[in-house]
């Protein structure tokens, strides 16, 4: 009898703590965090259509001297190596006016913004920069390969997103090269380590209103970041675009997708790969901005339109039966 009453009191006390804890946390913080609505199965609801965040943000601080673009650009125009003209396009699109520009590197840890590359990764990057005329050093994007993680989430003008949620899953549909990530939330173990995939193997969980995704089982076909081309003559030590940073199959990425206000999803990813980096490093940026509800993910048939590109890069005509 006593025992049962004691249990009940303990349960009430636990319930009170559980219920009050978030309320106390709210009271203590000056700005109340955004609480998204819930899906029928109780997940924070982040489903919907999204467009990329700010496109011109540098990925990293250069490990060497900053690069000055050649003087042939007209005075007064500031076209960085990461732009592709996308900045102007984004500015013209009024629906994207709410996106705040940022000139800070995406790399927030280490605090100097530099990617802590192992010497062989920096060497490989140098090789990539100095051999852009060789097919094997082309950006995987140009070869129509999948972007990998976290690169799939770096804001680029050729991407948009649809997030779907169903019981036990979050699914991210990427327009870019028709990548799809089906992320189970049930805590199942990762795939057998012998299975290696360009987009890896993702497992998710909700921590409060943040979707945390851990991805492993990568191969080494992808680049970690890289959301812009290099400038002609630019030394790799001056790069701020993330271009040319390879990784090993030991890559493990922990991503955090946090809806901050119903419009913007802030994104953080910590990259663990002791073979490629001297320490884990973290990138953070506003990755996704809610788009119009009637936005449609169109087909990104990259390889299908790349016959001329492949011919130029390799001399191989993949479709000689076509005119």
């Amino acid at each position, binding site marked *: 009898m006593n025992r049962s009453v004691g249990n009940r009191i303990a349960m009430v006390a636990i319930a009170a703590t559980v219920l009050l804890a978030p309320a106390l946390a709210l009271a203590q913080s000056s700005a109340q965090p955004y609480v998204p609505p819930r899906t029928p199965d109780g997940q924070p609801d982040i489903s919907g259509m999204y467009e990329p965040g700010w496109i011109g943000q540098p990925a990293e601080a250069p490990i060497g001297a900053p690069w000055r673009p050649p003087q042939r650009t007209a005075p007064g125009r500031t076209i960085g190596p990461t732009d592709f003209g996308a900045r102007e396009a984004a500015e013209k699109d009024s629906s994207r006016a709410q996106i705040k520009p940022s000139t800070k590197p995406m790399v927030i840890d280490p605090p100097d913004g530099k990617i802590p590359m192992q010497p062989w990764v920096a060497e490989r990057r140098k090789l990539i920069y100095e051999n852009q005329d060789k097919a094997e050093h082309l950006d995987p994007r140009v070869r129509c390969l999948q972007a990998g993680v976290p690169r799939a989430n770096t804001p680029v003008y050729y991407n948009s997103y649809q997030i779907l949620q169903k019981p036990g899953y979050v*699914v991210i*549909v990427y327009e870019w090269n*028709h990548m799809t990530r089906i992320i189970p939330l049930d805590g199942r173990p990762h795939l057998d380590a012998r299975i290696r995939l360009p987009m890896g193997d993702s497992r998710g969980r909700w921590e409060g209103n943040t979707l945390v995704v851990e991805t492993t089982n990568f191969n080494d076909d992808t680049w970690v970041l890289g959301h812009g081309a290099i400038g002609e003559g630019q030394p790799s030590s001056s790069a701020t675009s993330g271009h040319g940073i390879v990784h090993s199959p030991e890559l493990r990425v922990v991503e955090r997708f946090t809806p901050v206000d119903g419009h913007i999803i802030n994104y953080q990813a910590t990259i663990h790969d002791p073979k490629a980096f001297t320490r884990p490093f973290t990138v953070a940026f506003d990755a996704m901005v809610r788009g119009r509800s009637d936005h*449609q993910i169109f087909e990104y048939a990259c*390889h299908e339109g790349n016959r001329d590109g492949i011919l130029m890069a390799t001399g191989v005509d993949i479709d000689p039966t076509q005119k």
Partner: protein
Amino acid sequence: MRVRRVVPAARVATPLILVWLAVTSAAAQPATGARSQGPRTPDGKPDLNGIWQVINSAHWDIEAHSPEEGVPGGQGVVEGGTIPYQPWALEKRKENYARRATADPLSKCYLPGVPRVTYVPLPFEIIQTPKYVVMAFEIAHARRIIYTDGSAHVEALEFWMGDSRGRWEGDTLVVSTNNLTDKTWLDKAGNFHSTDLHVIERYTPAGPNHIQYEVTLEDPKVFTRPWKMSMILYRRLEPGLQLLDYDCVSFFWKRTLGK
């Protein structure tokens, strides 16, 4: 006068609708004549979520064909047995067949198109929500987003995987696909279509682990009449099974660059 005519019409209409519903649902469910068995989503639709795959040889040839080295024989999935080609198109199919080893778009890692992607013998996963049915395929990480939100087709575009709009007719998901390129084939045997192809697919659950898949192809430029294929989609039941990624393009580059 008008009003008096409308009222009896409504009275008559009710039993007629009931009869029509009974007839159409019986047509959709010839085996049981009742609602399909199996799981349902919260909005009451058959729950097609999960991983599916065909077990047939339609990928190699949708018509009946003998086995050959590397090609399993098959009894065909075309209703009536033969595709009703126009005479010129039959000639073109023969040409395609002769050079199929190099001319098959799949041998170049191109997206398989609709409906071929359904019967490539690799698994695909359905993600079903009230407004969208997304199909993710292992082959070439192809993907279809089927809008079930009542929206209309886009106009006059060309996609490798087409533009798909779906609706539920009872327990059958009916998907209309157009805006297709003429660069995809229907199988490895050179069966083909034009950009005028209109594909109507019907996904009807036949128990919890089977879908009766019927697809009608209309293409007045290539065929003499609409024609139909049918086959069964099987649910993959292995515990822990998940969709992998046959990233054909990356294999192409490894082969081409010799690494």
